[in-house]
């Protein structure tokens, strides 16, 4: 047996290993649970929840890009109440950490959802601040430090003892500034990056491929952007980071850890290979053993910048 310690601690929550499928790519675990044992995962971020059920956007919702994809699913989900009734009882029995991802129309909605999830015993809440703030003219909460901080404070005020991780949007000029704002507002951890805004066009019809015209870019293509941002945030704030964006195998996971991540998210890579998270966990263990790394947490922030 290997002597590598793969466990990490994210916002006070112990994960048996750092690999976590990210929100929106993994449903509530039912589908990929047919391909591998979910208990092999460090944790999983379930599909983004809203206070009320949402139908999502009209199709087409996905478009391929070089080494990546765009999506405009639009937060289709059954609502937090249905999640707690239909999914959480099954998930809470699993020996892996379920992370509930939430999106609100108002700060009050974030607070309400945090209260419900915390009361149900969900171990970690991920707050998506990439949603539009209606009062601020549709500007995403995550694009302005004061708005991101407001949502963070509201979430923390209602989450009780449940730790709150804030998921940052990369569609900003100064990611470190946003990170500092949510850290000051009491966030227990930060996850990044959410998707980058993008577009593709059908040259025959001259229509955007996505019905919503634009969507979020993910996949291996965004890895360098994600690494840079995780590194900047790790340098700016003293909070654990769930680093995500373009990770597809053990080596890219090691890069993400070295950039400053404590745990590593995987998303689009699972679409290409359902076994990608499991292979990455094994590969990470092998890599550590080969490189004389006895605990994977030693890698966090270990990049040696010039």
């Amino acid at each position, binding site marked *: 047996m290997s002597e590598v310690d793969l466990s990490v601690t994210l916002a006070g929550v112990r994960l048996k290993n750092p690999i976590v499928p990210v929100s*929106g*790519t*993994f*449903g509530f675990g*039912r*589908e*990929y649970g*047919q*391909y591998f044992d979910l208990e092999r995962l460090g944790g999983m971020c379930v*599909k983004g929840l809203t206070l009320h059920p949402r*139908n*999502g*956007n*009209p*199709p*087409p*919702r*996905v*478009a*391929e*890009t*070089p*080494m*990546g*994809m765009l*999506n405009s*699913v639009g937060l*289709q989900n059954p609502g937090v109440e249905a999640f707690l009734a239909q999914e959480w009882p099954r998930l809470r029995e699993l020996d892996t950490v379920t992370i509930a991802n939430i999106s609100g129309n108002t700060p009050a909605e974030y607070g309400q959802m945090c209260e419900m999830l915390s009361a149900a015993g969900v171990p970690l809440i991920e707050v998506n601040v990439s949603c539009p703030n209606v009062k601020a003219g549709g500007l995403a909460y995550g694009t302005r430090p004061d708005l991101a901080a407001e949502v963070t404070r509201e979430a923390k005020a209602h989450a009780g003892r449940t730790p709150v991780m804030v998921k940052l949007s990369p569609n900003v000029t100064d990611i470190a500034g946003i990170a500092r704002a949510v850290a000051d507002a009491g966030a227990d951890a930060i996850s990044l990056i959410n998707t980058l805004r993008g577009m593709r066009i059908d040259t025959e019809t001259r229509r955007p*491929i996505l019905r919503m015209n634009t969507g979020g870019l993910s*996949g*291996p293509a965004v890895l360098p952007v994600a690494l840079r941002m995780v590194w900047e945030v790790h340098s700016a704030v003293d909070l654990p980071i769930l680093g995500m964006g373009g990770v597809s195998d053990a080596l890219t996971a090691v890069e993400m850890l070295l950039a400053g991540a404590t745990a590593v998210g995987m998303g*689009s*890579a*699972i*679409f*290409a*290979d*359902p*076994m990608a998270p499991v292979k990455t966990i094994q590969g990470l263990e092998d890599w550590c053993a080969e490189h004389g790394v006895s605990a994977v947490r030693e890698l966090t922030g270990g990049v040696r910048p010039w």
Partner: protein
Amino acid sequence: MPVQQSCKLVSKVPVGPGAWQFVLEAGEMVDKTFRAPGQFVHIRCGEPRLLRRPISVCACQSDVPEDLLSVVFEVRGQGTAWLAEREEGDSLDVLGLLGNGFQMEREGRYLLAGGGIGVPPLYGCAQFCGGRAVAVLGFRSAQRAILLEPFGKACEDVRLYTDDGSLGATGFVADGVRAVLDKDKNFTAILACGPKPMLRGVAAAAGEYGVPCQVSMEERMACGVGACLGCAIQMADGTMRHVCKDGPVFDAQEVDWNV
């Protein structure tokens, strides 16, 4: 439970301009995951393409030493172009069999309505019900017609339509469906696969004659297993369903044809 399998390409045959029939050795995929004709496989198509390509199964069988399945696809973009360049003996990374197929009874009598590259999955339906099916197949032109001989052998009757009249009658598949139903409505159901306008027409014809109709739908797809919610289609009751997991086959009456 779905299977991810490295499948050997054992036969590659051109069946039309830019269209290929692949026969794959699929381990125990058919044995473990076959539910009904009309399911699909999700095939990786080489880097830099992240996403797999969903392709309906044409025919499949449990076999020794390996299950066999055939798919027919048309080169439509870079992924299918890459696929068409594979050679016999190459291996493909395949997820399958995915989705729910057509709900069929072995003893049923079915009217199969297929258009273009939507024709192949109906071959599995023709086989399933033991020669009692009537097929209405439509193509853009005679040059584009595929699988005529297998359908001829597997069906009670095959009626052909082309847009330009170069083969069979001039007209659309829905016209052919109406012509059949005018004389004979004694079908368990109509099973349709093809482009959306064709499906809409066939669904309308089925409604007019009061014959149940199932349609195989298409949408841009990512995960293929129901996790990402990418391949949504709108249903008549306003809800969203997903081609990969809830479909690809739906009751025609449940689909919102107006969007």
